[in-house]
């Protein structure tokens, strides 16, 4: 028998037996995350006929999808969740002042190597960046986990993407993941685990790895994964909620497909409307007029992302007629970026600072688009209607590409408008 992949080991350990890809196992996750959809989940839970949660301590609930509430309907939804949390004794509850669920699970030390994490949100794939097995599930499934603790999962086949080289100035992990998604398509990793490895990943910050794993769902992946290293351990030091053991794929593990990328020659990438795999070099869409820029989200709203954007915007102005929204991934990010002066640079350039939540990313509130408008966003989806208007167009790019577009009012190559010093900023390991 050949060696095992990371995913086989995690799911096998939970199932209490050796497992192979394609096998379906019943497992009890370590962490079950839900957000504003917890009210609907709680209502479904109530129909099962079980009074108490199987384990209140496995649940983490974050109010982020429309936070603070935009209107009475959203406010009532939040109210219902707070009452449920109270009644069921859920301690890991993060109210509207916290941030986006995926950043909260990472910052607060829930996302740990070797853990099995499910979330009723597709971007739950993010935590693989820290060596967890994490994947999205549906609302009813979360309700059943509340009642029984259990969920069925299929053991995925694994594809491995080795990344060599060094990013050129002005090119970032976001450009790499857009390039990969563009190459293999929105279903290129369907049902699969995706392992990112190689020197370019070893060099990459934890934040950059989170960007890769966050967007693994955009190519159909079940979960993303980066094997934990010293950077991971340093990041988790003082943050991890409990002891953990790192789980990695065996050297002779079987991969269904292997891809190799050299990031050295990579250009800034842009995803065009209306699919995330509609990707091109920035030069192909340069000159596209932009009405709104969104810098942030759970994909690219961490401190290094804001540093990169602020370095480009510092001392310059958001073009008249362009709205440049800053959407930090969490209030901790907002705090750190306020303390170190980043926010002041962004405000002075004419950016609008939003509170940390999902905001414009999914069109619930804060920055919806009007018919005919175009946006460039550092978030993860550009589907039709995503920012609240089906007659609008959304492009996706790195925070640096977004900052450049905010200055010029059009999609452009950030390397043509930013100094080498500005392009070198925010590349902290």
């Amino acid at each position: 028998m050949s060696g095992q992949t990371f995913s086989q080991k995690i799911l096998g350990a939970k199932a209490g037996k050796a497992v192979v890809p394609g096998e379906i196992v019943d497992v009890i996750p370590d962490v079950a995350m839900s957000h504003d959809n917890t009210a609907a989940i709680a209502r479904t839970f109530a129909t099962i006929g079980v009074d108490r949660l199987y384990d209140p301590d496995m649940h983490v609930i974050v109010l982020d999808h429309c936070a603070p509430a935009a209107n009475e309907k959203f406010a009532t939804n939040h109210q219902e969740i707070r009452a449920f949390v109270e009644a069921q004794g859920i301690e890991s509850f993060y109210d509207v002042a916290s941030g986006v669920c995926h950043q909260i699970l990472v910052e607060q030390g829930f996302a740990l190597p070797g853990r099995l994490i499910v979330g009723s949100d597709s971007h739950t794939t993010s935590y693989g960046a820290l060596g967890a097995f994490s994947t999205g599930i549906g609302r009813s499934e979360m309700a059943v986990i509340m009642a029984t603790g259990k969920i069925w999962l299929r053991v995925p086949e694994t594809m491995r993407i080795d990344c060599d080289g060094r990013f050129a100035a002005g090119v970032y992990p976001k450009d790499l993941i857009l390039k990969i998604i563009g190459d293999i398509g929105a279903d290129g990793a369907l049902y699969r685990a995706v392992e990112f490895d190689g020197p370019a990943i070893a060099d990459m910050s934890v934040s950059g790895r989170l960007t890769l794993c966050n967007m693994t769902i955009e190519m159909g992946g079940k979960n993303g994964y980066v094997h934990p290293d010293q950077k991971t351990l340093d990041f988790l030091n003082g943050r991890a909620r409990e002891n953990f053991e790192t789980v990695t794929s065996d050297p002779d593990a079987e991969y269904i497909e292997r891809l190799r990328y050299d990031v050295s020659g990579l250009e800034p990438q842009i995803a065009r409307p209306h699919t995330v795999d509609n990707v091109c070099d920035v030069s192909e869409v340069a000159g596209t007029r932009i009405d709104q820029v969104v810098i942030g989200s759970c994909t690219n709203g961490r401190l290094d992302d804001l540093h990169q954007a602020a370095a480009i915007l510092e001392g310059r102005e958001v073009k008249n007629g362009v709205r440049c929204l800053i959407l930090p991934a969490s209030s901790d990010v907002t705090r750190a970026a306020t303390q170190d002066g980043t926010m002041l640079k962004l405000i002075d350039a004419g950016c609008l600072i939003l509170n940390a939540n999902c905001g414009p990313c999914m069109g619930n509130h804060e920055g919806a688009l009007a018919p005919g408008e175009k946006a460039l966003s550092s978030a993860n989806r550009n589907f039709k209607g995503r920012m609240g208007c089906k007659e609008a167009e959304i492009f996706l790019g790195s925070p640096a590409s977004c900052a450049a577009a905010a200055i010029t009012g059009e999609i452009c190559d950030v390397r043509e408008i930013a100094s080498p010093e500005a392009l070198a900023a925010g590349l902290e390991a």
Partner: protein
Amino acid sequence: MEPITGKVWKYGDDVNTDVIFPGKYTYTVTEPAEMAKVALEDLDPDFAPNVQKNDVIVAGANFGCGSSREQGATCLVHAGVGAVIAASFSRLFFRNAINAGLPLVQSVEAVAALEKGDEVTVDVEAGTVTTQAGTFAFPPLPEAVIGIFEDGGLIPHTRKALGID
């Protein structure tokens, strides 16, 4: 379950959850009848006003990609859709559909043989799709999850498993 016969609504590859059930409605449109009215709103405005009970959606690869939102599957159930036939499904849509008791058929051949407005019959128990061009077999659901589907979805299945029903 009884075979389902209905009219085909045909779409392309990568039909995503935002065009099936827009994100802006995920917390505001919650009643089944209202959910049915916005199904496929950003893909095909003709669908919701005209869909008939047991009509069948036929689409290309990666149907239901994107969000985990369960309404992607349940709004179709509420709209009366009898089954979805696609070249492939996103894993989250696949799970949500099984959990909602919505029959899914993965068959590249059946997709190629069907056009908008055609009549089609899906027989889940026999594992066949019958079109004017012929009958196509499709693989059954995995053994481990077929019980969920047969019990009418995840919640009734769970109640049964817990001995509540």
